[in-house]
């Protein structure tokens, strides 16, 4: 960075600082003058929206932490006190609670956008991988955050998810005891989840910094999925995309505000307003909506696999489900190598475009299955959808380039833009 070109700032204070630590020059280079493809659509707002949500969650979370008590005796009541007695506590908590859902909405759109336009392909593979790491960290953070109010769903969600690790052969139970710090989900568990829930967002912030740094090396992908070839293909980030991001943010904030002020508990589970009771399991344990597709995959594995002709169970249905669920997320790391088509954007890949939408429909179906009790038709549908999820990644994507006739790519972004594409 020291070798980077410095900008001449008129303000003498800024100039003095910049000469010694060229932060302002760096900001100018990366966020003002940064050449950005000129054909972004509104789906390219969602990266900035994710960053906005991360900051929102950290800020509201810090203020909630000033009143929250991480103890099984006081956690539930301290949250209720925030809701009733703490000045503006209801607002800060509703922002934080629904903010988790908003964060996942924008990140899921961001991920599907990357899939549709092939943003994970060369030279952006590492950028994609960093994104998947952020998703995993978000899942861990959201899960532990949901435990903190110590309601019935908090407790039983924590019990079910930590018990997943008991499926690991031989050391499973020891790992679970270690995770709990006891023999069940209890006070030590709550305390460590709180510590980690406070820590992980800052880790996410660090990985996001790397994610953006990698983005600024390769430059952004764009809806056409073709490389920037000349300065005519780009516009400076500021004011063009700062303005576009602000507009998108405004629309998003209206949506967010409607949820916070009119439907604050719509996305949550009413059972979480019942204090945790280790002796009574709720009749129907469901995770928050953003985990439902993965929960459906977990429950789709219903048979034990035996060593042939014996009663020795090789993979129990429990272990199988756990492997499938983690596999479903880990598979995303390999996406850049599973899809070998040289054409990035689905705009020019007629077959991939169809399969992309089938994949989206599959994900939504899995979400619906995850919200149903595990009996009857949803089980069968969940098994078919789970199978298709893996077929999409492991068979369809690698095979597609062999059969697909892609459409001709435009010569440049600016040519396509001038033709009105």
């Amino acid at each position: 960075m020291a070798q980077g070109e410095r900008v001449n700032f008129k303000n003498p204070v800024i100039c003095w600082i910049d000469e010694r630590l060229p932060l302002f020059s760096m900001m100018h280079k990366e966020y003002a003058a940064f050449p950005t493809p000129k054909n972004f659509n509104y789906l390219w707002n969602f990266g900035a929206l994710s960053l906005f949500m991360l900051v929102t969650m950290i800020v509201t979370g810090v203020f909630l932490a000033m009143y929250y008590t991480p103890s099984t005796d006081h956690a539930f009541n301290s949250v209720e006190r925030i809701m009733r007695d703490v000045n503006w506590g209801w607002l800060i908590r509703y922002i934080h609670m629904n903010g988790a859902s908003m964060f996942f909405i924008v990140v899921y759109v961001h991920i599907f956008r990357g899939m549709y336009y092939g943003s994970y392909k060369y030279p952006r593979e590492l950028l994609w991988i960093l994104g998947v790491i952020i998703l995993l960290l978000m899942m861990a953070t959201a899960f532990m955050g949901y435990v903190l109010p110590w309601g019935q769903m908090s407790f039983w969600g924590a019990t079910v998810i930590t018990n997943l690790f008991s499926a690991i052969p031989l050391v499973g139970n020891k790992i679970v005891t270690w995770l709990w710090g006891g023999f069940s989900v209890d006070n030590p568990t709550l305390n460590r989840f709180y510590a980690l829930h406070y820590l992980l967002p800052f880790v996410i912030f660090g990985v996001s910094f790397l994610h953006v740094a990698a983005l600024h090396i390769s430059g952004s992908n764009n809806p056409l999925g073709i490389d920037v070839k000349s300065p005519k293909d780009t516009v400076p980030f500021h004011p063009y995309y700062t303005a576009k991001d602000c507009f998108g943010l405004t629309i998003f904030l209206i949506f967010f505000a409607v949820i916070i002020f009119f439907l604050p508990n719509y996305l949550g589970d009413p059972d979480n307003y019942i204090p945790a009771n280790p002796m009574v399991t709720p009749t129907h344990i469901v995770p928050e909506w953003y985990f439902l597709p993965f929960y459906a995959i977990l429950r789709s594995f219903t048979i034990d696999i035996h060593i042939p002709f014996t009663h020795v169970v090789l993979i129990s249905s429990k272990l199988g489900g756990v492997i499938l669920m983690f596999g479903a997320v880990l598979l995303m790391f390999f996406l850049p190598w599973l899809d070998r088509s040289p054409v990035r954007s689905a705009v020019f890949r007629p077959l991939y475009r169809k399969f992309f939408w089938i994949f989206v429909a599959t994900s939504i179906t899995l979400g619906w299955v995850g919200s149903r009790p595990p009996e009857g038709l949803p089980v069968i549908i969940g098994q078919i959808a789970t199978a298709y999820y893996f077929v999409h990644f492991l068979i369809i994507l690698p095979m597609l380039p062999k059969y697909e006739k892609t459409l001709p790519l435009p010569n440049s972004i600016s040519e396509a833009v001038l033709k009105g594409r």
Partner: protein
Amino acid sequence: MAHPPSSTSDQTCGHCQQGDEENDSSRRDFLTLAAGAMAGVGTIVTAYPLIQSMNPAADVLAMATTEVDLSAVKEGQSLTVVWRGKPVFIRNRTQAEIDEARAVPMNDLKDPQTDQARVANSKFGGKDLPEWLVMVGVCTHLGCVPLGQKPTDPHGEFDGWFCPCHGSQYDSSGRIRKGPAPKNLEIPPYQFTDATHIKIG
């Protein structure tokens, strides 16, 4: 930064020419390996107490036994007590339930175990007390508490317990019969301290 790159390489070359090259590089390899090994050991030694600190603390371990008075539990009734933060199901089984559990062929069981083996600890003064079934009331699938302790609860198809979370069904001996759970309900360590009292843990 003080030396231009060429002078650094000159220095290295001059140094190598003076000494025995093979001997010197092997000595350097040894130093690198030794330092690396020490760093590795140091990392493990540092990480161990941190990781170990997350295991159950002494006071948590100290509260690991529970004593229960069974005198109020009549035949066909159940009692749920807390042991290590988990529910323990204690059932005074009817003769019909015991007979039903003992009539099941081993081939029908996912986790084969006789009913006799499951109540092996239920004895006092040389007398077997097979009516007393003592189990950890935690589904072996994902840790929910199965229903079946109250007469009005669902008991599943096998006159035992039914887990509402993912539909696992346990029989009147607490053995897994149907659903995703891999194992029978766990039998905790327990013993009868007299005819009507047990100590769990």
